[in-house]
């Protein structure tokens, strides 16, 4: 076998293969959100991206966050967005471009942001592996404990914020006639 001019990357382990598949799902979803001409296809891509993010949380052993992500984003937010698309339907299917006047500048800024972020993160010596988690239930118990002790004021404020925001949303969207 001839000598390769560069060392081959090591074979991915099973969690890495799972992560790559999830990441491909999330990337395809994100690209669909950005590039689809039909807004409804964008919403479907958004669901794929949300599922990908939930998978990433589960690979990172944050199962509670993953389940919350599926419940809140996939269950509630996607439904809300789909309803809004159907309620504002009139403009959706024109022959016009899905991008606005400043999209050229936006593309340049976006590409620069991505390049700068990746370049920055490659220059930093990150830890190779996190500490192993042996007791997954202790994490969920700890989350519940933190929400009623250290973080009780933010938690109650968050409950108020949700109530006010949802009531305000109804006030904004209702028909005034």
């Amino acid at each position, binding site marked *: 076998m001839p000598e390769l001019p560069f060392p081959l990357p090591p074979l991915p382990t099973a969690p890495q293969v799972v992560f790559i598949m999830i990441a491909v799902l999330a990337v395809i979803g994100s690209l669909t959100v950005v590039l689809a001409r039909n807004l409804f296809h964008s919403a479907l891509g958004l669901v794929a991206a949300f599922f990908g993010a939930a998978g990433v949380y589960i690979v990172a052993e944050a199962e509670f966050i993953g389940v919350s992500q599926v419940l809140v984003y996939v269950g509630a937010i996607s439904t809300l967005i789909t309803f809004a698309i159907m309620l504002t339907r009139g403009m959706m299917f024109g022959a016009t471009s899905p991008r606005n006047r400043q999209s050229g500048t936006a593309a340049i800024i976006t590409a620069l942001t991505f390049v700068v972020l990746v370049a920055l993160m490659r220059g930093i010596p990150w830890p190779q592996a996190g500490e192993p988690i042996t007791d997954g239930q202790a994490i969920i118990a700890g989350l519940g404990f933190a929400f009623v002790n250290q973080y009780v004021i933010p938690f109650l404020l968050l409950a108020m*914020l949700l109530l006010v925001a949802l009531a305000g949303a109804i006030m904004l969207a209702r028909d005034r006639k």
Partner: protein
Amino acid sequence: MVPLTWYLILAAFMFSSGLFAALGRRNAIAVLMGIELMLNAANINLIAFWRYGVTPTQNLDGQIFALFVIAVAAAEVAVGLALIISVYRNRRTVNLDDLDILKG
């Protein structure tokens, strides 16, 4: 174990896609979708840094922040969509190129 850089690159990609959707899409609902993508990217970073931090079983701040972000995002998208529906009812369009009455 999955390297931390993979999480960060995925999050950077999702953030950049969301940024482009927020800046360059014509439809107001697509802009909201881009904002949701950016919030998700931030959440992926929070969870990744929680996992690779010191004593992840005791130090749960990353997960708690992620939960707060999810809840605030739910409130934000509800108000945003209500605003868009209100604008659509008044102007019959959600095309951002047409919504420029505040422009001097």
